[in-house]
């Protein structure tokens, strides 16, 4: 593993520094990126010792978090309702299927137009992808519940509400968490694009801005930071999911590892 990473970094360095290919020579090499990243006095103004670096992270994280939680509190109940009530699904499902082929990022201009200001627009497109992922996975989760569980509950005298509380919600929970992880990934994906197109702060904005200002090492720093923050956020969801779905953890504890 170490060898793989080291040799890849060396390859990168070599390609940039020692080959005659212009395409590679234009890229920043890993050494200058790392020096810039940990410098107390960075050439281009951003390193782990500057306040602005964290400000960009904070902005992006804030947007992703707001969008994610909006998607969570709207998408999960919507998906559950769609799985619980066939009639409701007939309305909502048709509308979702109708809107879904439009890629989330195609909503950026219209979001800027309709919503007051760029900030809500960026959050909106980020929310939108997360929302679709959450809703559809929640619905999938409800659909994947073994029909015998519903029958068993009916036999035991459960009412419709009991079934919602005791079968549908816990039964769909594992899939909901898978959906939330996907939603988080998709949220970062959209956020970067949204920030590039219409924001003044944030990691995505800074990536494009650094390009315009010819501060190439900063681009790589920001890309790497994005990767770390994105990875950490989905890891966090995974941990919360494991805590909340204790029964599953113990049931499949031996045997196969849950793949994500």
């Amino acid at each position, binding site marked *: 593993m170490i060898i793989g990473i080291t040799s890849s970094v060396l390859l990168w360095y070599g390609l940039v520094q020692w080959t005659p290919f212009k395409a590679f020579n234009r890229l920043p090499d890993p050494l200058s990126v790392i020096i810039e990243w940990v410098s107390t006095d960075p050439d281009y103004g951003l390193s782990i010792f500057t306040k602005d670096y964290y400000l960009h992270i904070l902005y992006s994280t804030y947007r992703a978090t707001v969008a994610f939680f909006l998607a969570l509190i709207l998408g999960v109940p919507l998906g559950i309702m769609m799985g619980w009530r066939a009639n409701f699904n007939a309305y909502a499902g048709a509308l979702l299927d109708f809107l879904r082929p439009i890629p989330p990022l195609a909503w950026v201009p219209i979001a800027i137009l309709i919503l007051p200001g760029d900030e809500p627009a960026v959050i909106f497109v980020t929310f939108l992808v997360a929302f679709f992922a959450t809703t559809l996975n929640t619905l999938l989760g409800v659909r994947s519940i073994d029909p*015998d569980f519903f*029958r068993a*509950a009916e*036999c*035991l005298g*459960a009412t419709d509400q009991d079934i919602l509380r005791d079968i549908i919600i*816990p039964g769909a929970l594992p899939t909901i968490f898978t959906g939330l992880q996907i939603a988080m990934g998709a949220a970062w994906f959209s956020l970067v694009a949204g920030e590039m197109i219409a924001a003044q702060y944030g990691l995505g904005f800074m990536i494009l801005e650094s390009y315009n200002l010819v501060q190439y090492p900063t681009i790589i720093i920001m890309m790497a930071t994005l990767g770390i923050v994105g990875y950490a956020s989905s890891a966090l969801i995974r941990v919360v999911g494991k805590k909340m779905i204790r*029964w599953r953890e113990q*049931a499949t504890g031996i045997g196969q590892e849950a793949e994500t």
Partner: protein
Amino acid sequence: MSQAGSISVSNIQKIYDPEGAAVHALENCSCEIPSGKFVAMVGPSGCGKSTLLNMIAGFDKPTSGEIKLDDQLLVSANTQTPPNSDRVVVFQNGALFPWKTVLENIAYGPIVQKTRGRGQAEEEARELLNKAGNLERIAGSFPGQISSGMQRRVEILRALINKPKVLLLDEPFRAMDTVSKSKMHQHLLDIHDKFRPSILLITHDLVEAILLADVVLVMTTRPGTIKVNINVELPRPRSREMILSDEFTELQKQAIAAVHEEARKAFERGEKELA
């Protein structure tokens, strides 16, 4: 009240019509499950045994004919009494709620029916676990943590706590090895002796059917109807050793003859359908 619980099935016909091609699952099917008796139903795969069980449970309704519980109409072509705790099903693949502990699973019925509070229901569930052979130690486990045999016992207890009039067992021991199966038979016999619910057991295993039941119903291949009605007059309480008795062998011969004739028919038809 739990002494009642006789099911009478009369002239049931069921036609599935998924896409124009009418499939006659059941035709002119009549039988009785007398109160407190153990009835086993055997027959080739796809003969409509499960369809019949689903109708009794209230998951499905017939094209014509009717099913009564203690002289009360349960289902017919235009009535369908929704499932309730009078007739509880134990499913083929098991349907313990994996997200609830064993104790919560067993106590579930009384809690949702609001006949008892949570505390009392769980107390009763604990007692039941004890009576079923010192199972209290697994009360806090999740179903995924206990063996499949244990899961079946818990599922049966979850049904019993509701004092059902009829217990409907849909091939519950199908996926079990011989040793666990024979243990389960003993448990089921004990339960039947202690609680005396009417039981309908669907199975493929003739030995199991004869050993456990008072009446063995052999079904024909599709369209399903009752072919033979074998009365098993082995004394109760029963034990595994009875398998070796002449009486048992004689019953087994009768059953095998009936079942194999139907199995052959089903097989030949299957070949024809494929061709």
